[in-house]
């Protein structure tokens, strides 16, 4: 294994192992060795988070592993992103992601954001307890391709309908795709409120986001 491929493997492995310090160190060493930022991103960082997601999908990884993997991914990308040239890592689309008003659960959305970034989406995290008006304003004022809403309680999932109705009222509904997810949600509920897609989990959210954007 060459020095370059060894470093790339270290980056990937440190993300899979959820070691953010090791991930940062390996990325910095790779840059110092002259590796191109885009290569570090595409060959080390992205495969790292993809493998983490795959291990979770297979039931080998649990939430603490995925959270630490997402944190290591974030640490690595924070070093690489400022060094990428325009066009190095073209974005698949822009997603505004948030947990609806009244809901303070931040776990699912964190994982979804990391997975979407790993899949090449630009993700703006709106946080938790996001009012319907904020989602609508984001669509109105920013060039957002997808609004992603999470709800983790039966009482808060009703807010999703408010957002979709608000988008219709503002004549913005055709401008954006709406994706929903969270523990109490079902495809039936997503259909009932007029969402474009329901993400069963973080990996499914990536698949559906690509589908609604028309990319494979």
């Amino acid at each position, binding site marked *: 294994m060459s020095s370059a491929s060894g470093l790339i493997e270290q980056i990937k492995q440190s993300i899979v192992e*959820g070691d953010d310090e090791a991930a940062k160190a390996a990325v910095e060493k790779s840059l110092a060795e002259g590796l191109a930022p885009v290569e570090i991103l595409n060959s080390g960082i992205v495969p790292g988070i993809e493998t983490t997601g795959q291990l979770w999908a297979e*039931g080998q990884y*649990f*939430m*603490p*592993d995925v*959270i*630490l993997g997402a*944190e290591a991914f974030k640490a690595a990308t924070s070093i690489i992103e400022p060094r990428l040239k325009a066009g190095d890592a073209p974005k698949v689309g822009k997603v505004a992601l948030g947990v609806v008003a*009244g809901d*303070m*659960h*931040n*776990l*699912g959305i*964190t994982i979804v954001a990391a997975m979407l970034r790993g899949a090449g989406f630009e993700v703006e995290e709106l946080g938790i307890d996001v009012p319907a008006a904020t989602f609508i304003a984001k669509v109105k004022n920013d060039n957002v391709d997808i609004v992603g809403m999470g709800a983790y*309680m*039966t*009482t808060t999932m009703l807010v999703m309908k408010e957002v979709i109705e608000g988008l219709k009222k503002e004549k913005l509904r055709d401008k954006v795709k709406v994706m929903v997810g969270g*523990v*109490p949600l079902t495809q039936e509920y997503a259909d009932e409120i007029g969402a474009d897609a329901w993400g069963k*989990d973080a990996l499914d959210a990536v698949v559906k986001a690509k589908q609604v954007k028309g990319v494979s």
Partner: protein
Amino acid sequence: MSQCVKAAFEHCVPSRLPRGELWIGTTVFEERQMEDDVDAHLGLCHKMGMDLISLPVGDSQDSPSGYRLFSVADIEKAARSGLFVVAVLSGPLQRLVDKNGLRSTLADIGRDTDGIREALRDEAQELYCLIDICTERGADAVVIADDLAYNRATFFSPTVFRQLIHPFYRELVDRVHRRRAYAVLHSDGNIASIVPDIVSSGFDGLSCQEECVDLISLKRTYGTQLTLLAGLSCELLNAGSLPAKRKQQFVEWIKVLSQGGGIILSSSSGLHSSRMLLNVERLYHLADEALARASNTRPYLATYPVRERGRKEVG
């Protein structure tokens, strides 16, 4: 104490299918222009024909989940009502999550097992005191509410559960039992992989999401050890109307779950709207009708498939 709830915990033949909710949200009372206090809860429980009253206990009145927290004085008042009184306490993990957030707590579980164990021990110590106080004031059962899972699986592996959480559960259950009360665990999500460990902790009852856990299988495997607080799914509670087919499914479901007793008709989510209240009344009625009809041909509630020593009439 409502004897039919006690019968459910003792796996004996109850006089009727016991019922009650772990949480009734503040919005239910707001919609009725009522104060969310223990009197309102008692009044609603009596009006709905519930056999138990549950009071989430905490230092402040506020809870981020849409229901208020009560004081131990409220437990004492509820204990004079004749209803079976359940004190709902956040479990050791939930208490950490409430302080630090779920993401941060799970990350700590991933990187600092010893630190988390110490933190859980501190929370458990406070819980022991709360258990003592609530049972002294008249709680008949204590629910340890710890969300251990999401819709797909437990947050952490069963091995981590056994190492970190299970030892504290055993101690908490022992404490409840020493106070001659029943111990119930509530968790959202798919906890199927750790049910054997939950049973081995000694819990008398389990409240979990039927959308995530196969309750029929649970009933068949652990029906003699665990009383299930179940039967009312979120979907049923939120339904605008119930088609005949769905009603029939519910009835069949209840017939299976109620065989041999050991069930308290309840949701895992609690009630948070007038629609839910209306649906609960309809579902109680459906369940009672179905079991009354069924008992003419087959004594559902009195049929104990596995535990002979439970065959005694209570209440």
